[in-house]
């Protein structure tokens, strides 16, 4: 499954590395190695049960490039993210950004995860300027997942209040 998700990006990545052969990119840190690593060995590809009250699902799309990204988090009773999964259909940078995002949110609290910025993701993966929007997509996916989790928690609490009355 991971391999097939990864394969979707092969041709755009070839384009990316061709762009990178221009002299101005040589001085950048080995970004394409990191991106390649994430799409050849993506971390946390998969699905969590979206109906579970402990799972927040973030589903985002980028219309300019047609990328779609789903990021899910599982939060324990102490508000700590214990698991995260993603599925991304798009270019290598988008896949790498979401893969990295799931790695970073694990072990963080819900509030800490909100502080993850697209610039951190882009810096870590050494994304070129033209691919910065992929890291933005990943940040938005994290926020959407957290918002979905929060909404579920609030709904739960309201139900509990209603039940006790």
């Amino acid at each position, binding site marked *: *499954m991971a391999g*097939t*998700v990864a394969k*979707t990006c092969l041709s755009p990545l070839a384009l990316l590395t061709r762009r990178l052969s221009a002299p101005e990119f040589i001085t950048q840190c080995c970004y394409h190695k990191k991106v390649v690593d994430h799409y050849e060995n993506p971390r946390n590809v998969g699905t969590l049960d979206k109906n579970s009250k402990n799972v927040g699902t973030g*589903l*985002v*799309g*980028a*219309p*300019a*490039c*047609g*990328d*779609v990204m*789903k990021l899910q988090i599982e939060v324990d009773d102490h508000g700590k993210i214990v698991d995260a999964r993603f*599925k991304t*259909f*798009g270019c290598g940078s988008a896949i790498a950004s979401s893969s990295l995002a799931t790695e970073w949110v694990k072990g963080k609290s819900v509030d800490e995860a909100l502080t993850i910025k697209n610039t951190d993701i882009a810096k870590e993966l050494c994304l070129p300027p033209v691919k910065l*929007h992929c890291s*933005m*997509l990943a940040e*938005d996916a994290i926020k959407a997942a957290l918002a979905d989790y929060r909404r579920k928690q609030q709904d739960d609490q309201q139900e509990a209040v209603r039940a006790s009355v």
Partner: protein
Amino acid sequence: MLSYNSLRIVCPFRALLHPNWLMTNRQSVNKTVTCSAHCVSPSFPKKNTWQRQNNLKPTGNERKLQYLTYAASSPRNYCTGQFKLNCWNCKQPLDQTPAFFCLTCKAVQPPEEDTSLFIIMDCDYKFSLDTHKLQKRYLHLQRSLHPDNFSQKSVEEQEYSESYSALVNKAYHTLLKPLSRGLYMLELKGMVIEEGTDSGADPEFLMELMEINEALDEVKTPEEANKIGQHTKGKLAVLTEEIDAALLKGELPSAKALLAQMKYFANIEEKVKEKLSEFM
């Protein structure tokens, strides 16, 4: 190719000879730097003269000469839209728009900037374009404009035929596919689909896209892939009609949203093709 050379020198003499140059908005001209007069011949040098003129450095201690882009093409490139364009070769007025060839001397002309691709391909400015007519026009133009026809001609004509041929290629490929055509029509109206997340996207629509993508990922036979391909084609056909209606009514925001949806399905269609080629 001198048009893309990085040598340009504009001197006060030339400014007097060609006042048009001062009026142009072209970026390349804005980058010019005046050089000291003695290092440039007062007569208007032809393009080839510039190429051969290696010794452009000023004498003595003046090292201020900057080498910047020299666009040695004809004065017509510096004309604004209000001016009538003349052939670079025989100076006769070109009475057509777009002018591919001079009617008098038959020399190929450089493409005018910012000409609509619809005008170049002689197609009505509408989304429901006749692609057969487009293709015929494309072949007709390339028969006369292709650089292979100019291998024995002057350097200028070779360059102009290259530029025009490339532009005709771009026009054809942009107008051929509904998605690129629609996006170009929006662009002409000053609207683009921004990069980044679409915060207004319908979650159900995104879910549907996810499911289609996931199903495509898991297909085991070409038939399954084809089934998804057919479904996607159907969606694209419906979207094409809706976009046509929206553009005819001038409802640009709707057209933009529909084109965004089309982009997602166009990507899926590409993936179906890749999947089917994997099965071969």
